[in-house]
């Protein structure tokens, strides 16, 4: 009998050990996958797979950055001189422009002459830059294929234009996204943290027992509401309200995003902080009161310092929720990937970006990898916050 | 110093004060006998009340110390021996009082130096006083090195006491006054012998207190 029990215990131990390890490994693998896909991004250039840019053979320019390409095709750069070339006006060519140069008959019945036509067109126009599918590149292309610079770190982190679907050169500058994320998150924290801790103090120290027993479960319930519901509420109630109050053209702003996030983070912050505060030993509070302190003095001199690590845990979880929230924010902030100058403008956050675009990005394209990289950045931001809070916690003790 | 130590010191001082009183009672009764002085005898007798008061006080102090302080080890032995020494001192005082009373009632008789010398009464007085002083100092200094001396002095007293009996019975053909004086000497000697016994008891108590060794009735080792 005993042997059987021992065997059973061993088996349970082994299973749990295995499960624990598998879980850990799984998490690790997910993170590694994230990083691998993300880091791969920096090896790519911004021109879409399967397309090329070509120049006339005689054009001294060999390489262009993605920004320069974009500016050229947006007609912001009009002279080759601006990109270290000759002082000649740039001539743009896209595939649709082909009919400006050749007739339909020359293209052929089934457009089989396109490659030769393109090659000839480029040859005839020394100042031309052409953008067309790679498939139309002739076998012995006599002109120059442009090298596009790889996307660098500075361009990625410092660029302020996020246009992953632009042609010919997509823009992957995430500054606006980072700013958007940070603005909304900090706005949310600014609202939620003081309010959350204040309510927690009220529940833990001031409210009478019946009221607390009623309110606490209600708040805990709120913590479980799916974020889409909050987003819906935000869209239908909050956004018009903000629009009216601040007299804005549209109500979808960073402020709305912050408020919604704050509302979502509040239940978490309140319940955890309140639990932490209730663990303050009664003896300690009595000691303070017995020395002549008022109830409020006891709260901020004894209860808060004692439960500070719990309050910080509440803060991290609340912040974590705020930063990682996707749907609700997406619905309410207006989705504008521009650097915000105030909270009363639309903006877009990193999670929202990932959620909105991942479905559309072709698998393993540059865009796809850029989104993964965004995920990595989000992961790192959260990691930094958690580590620094751990650090602060250690220091206090 | 601990509160307990303070109170134990108080007790000790009271016991020593009582000791002082009893010693002077005995000394004075010796002088009363030697001078057959009625006044001195009366002085000794009137000290009796004070001695009794001391006994009551020390009893009460010991009771309270035991009830309130729960002493252990040497403190407990100290209090127990103080209690017993208290009793012994009171009896010694009683006996000294008795000697004085005997003298007081016979001051119409004459001091008989010859009989006094042959019965060694003065020597006995001195030995007894010395015993009392030795044990007092032993108690005061918590040093029982003189216990043996005290116990052997008791032997001397026993000897004198035994001889006194024979001496007395050999005295015939005396006048009544002379007889009374002789009997006085005899009675005093008996009392002094018992004082000596009490001093020996005290010496044994002190040994118990200081070394936790029981000497009386053959001891516990």
């Amino acid at each position, binding site marked *: 009998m005993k042997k059987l029990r021992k065997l059973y215990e061993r088996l349970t131990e082994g299973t749990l050990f295995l499960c624990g390890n598998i879980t850990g490994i799984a998490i690790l693998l997910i993170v590694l996958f994230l990083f691998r896909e993300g880091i791969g991004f920096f090896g790519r250039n911004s021109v879409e797979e399967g397309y090329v840019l070509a120049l006339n053979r005689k054009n001294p320019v060999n390489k262009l950055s993605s920004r320069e390409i974009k500016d050229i095709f947006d007609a912001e750069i009009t002279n080759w001189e601006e990109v270290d070339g000759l002082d000649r006006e740039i001539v743009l060519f896209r595939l649709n422009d082909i009919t400006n140069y050749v007739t339909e008959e020359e293209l052929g019945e089934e457009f089989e002459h396109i490659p030769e036509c393109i090659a000839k067109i480029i040859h005839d126009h020394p100042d031309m830059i052409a953008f067309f599918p790679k498939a139309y590149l002739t076998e012995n292309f006599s002109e120059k294929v442009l090298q596009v610079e790889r996307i660098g770190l500075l361009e990625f982190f410092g660029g302020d234009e996020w246009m992953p679907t632009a042609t010919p050169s997509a823009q992957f500058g995430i500054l606006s996204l980072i700013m958007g994320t940070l603005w909304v998150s900090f706005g949310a924290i600014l609202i939620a943290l003081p309010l959350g801790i204040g309510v927690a103090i009220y529940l833990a120290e001031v409210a*009478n*027992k019946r009221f607390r027993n009623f309110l606490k479960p209600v708040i805990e319930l709120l913590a479980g509401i799916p974020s889409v519901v909050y987003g819906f509420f935000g869209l239908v109630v909050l956004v018009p309200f903000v629009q009216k109050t601040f007299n804005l053209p549209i109500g979808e702003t960073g402020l709305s995003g912050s408020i919604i996030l704050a509302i979502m983070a509040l239940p978490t912050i309140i319940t955890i902080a309140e639990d932490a505060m209730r663990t303050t*030993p009664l*003896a*300690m509070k*009595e*000691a*303070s*009161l*017995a*020395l*002549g*302190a*008022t109830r409020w*003095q006891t709260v901020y*001199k*004894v209860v808060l*310092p*004692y439960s500070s690590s719990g309050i910080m845990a509440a803060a991290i979880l609340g912040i974590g929720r705020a930063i990682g929230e996707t749907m609700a924010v997406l619905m309410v902030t207006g989705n504008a990937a521009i650097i915000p100058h105030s909270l009363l403008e639309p903006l877009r956050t990193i999670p929202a970006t990932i959620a909105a675009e991942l479905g559309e990005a072709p698998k393993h394209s540059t865009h796809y990898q850029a989104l993964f990289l965004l995920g990595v950045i989000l992961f790192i931001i959260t990691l930094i916050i958690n580590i620094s809070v751990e650090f602060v916690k250690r220091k206090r003790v | 110093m*601990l*509160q*307990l130590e303070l109170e134990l010191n108080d007790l000790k001082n009271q016991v020593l004060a009582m000791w002082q009183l009893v010693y002077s009672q005995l000394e004075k009764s010796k002088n009363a006998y030697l001078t057959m002085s009625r006044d001195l005898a009366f002085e000794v007798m009137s000290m009796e009340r004070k001695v009794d008061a001391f006994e009551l006080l020390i009893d009460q102090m010991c*009771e*309270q110390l035991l*009830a*309130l*302080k*729960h002493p252990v080890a040497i403190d407990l032995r100290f209090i127990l021996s103080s209690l017993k020494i208290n009793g012994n001192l009171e009896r010694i005082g009683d006996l000294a009082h008795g000697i004085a009373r005997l003298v007081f009632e016979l001051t119409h008789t004459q001091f008989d130096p010859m009989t006094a010398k042959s019965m060694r009464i003065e020597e006995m007085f001195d030995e007894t006083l010395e015993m009392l002083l030795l044990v007092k100092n032993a108690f005061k200094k918590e040093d029982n090195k003189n216990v043996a001396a005290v116990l052997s002095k008791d032997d001397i007293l026993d000897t004198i006491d035994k001889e006194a009996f024979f001496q007395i019975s050999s005295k015939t053909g005396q006048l009544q006054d002379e007889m009374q004086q002789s009997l006085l000497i005899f009675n005093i000697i008996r009392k002094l012998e018992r004082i000596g016994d009490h001093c020996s008891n005290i010496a044994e108590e002190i040994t118990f207190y200081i070394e936790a060794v029981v000497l009386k009735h053959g001891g516990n080792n």
Partner: protein
Amino acid sequence: MINVENINFYYGKFHALQNISMGMEANTITALIGPSGCGKSTFLRLFNRMNDLIPDTTLTGTVSIGGVDIYQKNVLVDDLRKRVGMVFQKPNPFPKSIFENVAYGMRVNGMNNKKIIAEKVEQALKHAALWDEVKDKLKKSAFAISGGQQQRLCIARALAVEPDILLMDEPASALDPISTSKIEELMFQLKEDYTIVIVTHNMQQAARVSDHTAYFYMGELIEYGETKKIFTNPDKKSTQNYVTGRFG
């Protein structure tokens, strides 16, 4: 100095203290003894109104300190608690440094003159016989010292506000014998400047330390008198049964 008349105290419907009247003189140590649950802690907490923190309690009768009824409407509880200090059963220092623990009471009262605070902290620690042991580590956490030292720290903390009365609720019950005897010695010295009321379930401690003893049983005051008397020849048989250990 302290006087109670016809005190009745209820926790809800439970009649915790029944018709108690007694008085305590200044600069004495009074011990409250009795079996668990007899109401002695409740009684003690009347004097600094700590029972106010418990909901649904009722008090009838008068409790006066220095002739003033402390349950009158116009009495400020915070001020009362500065005059009547309390030391609890388990040492409960704040999670702050030793210095800050002792200074807490003063800071809470609005004092912030650094020099005066430092002086009073030193005074209080000396008064509690702890100064020599901690003077080099005033900035260390209060949890870095032993249990006995922590309890003396709590005493210093209570003394720092310079109360008139010190209430001690089983102050040594969580401590080892040596710390206990240190605290008992301390009480003899404190007696000169404070009036002390101590609750203890340890009769021997009550006998060692107090001038007067009150024996409580089931919410009633059975006997109150000089400690000498209670432990040598109490009036009531029930008291005698309790102190001799024949009780229950």
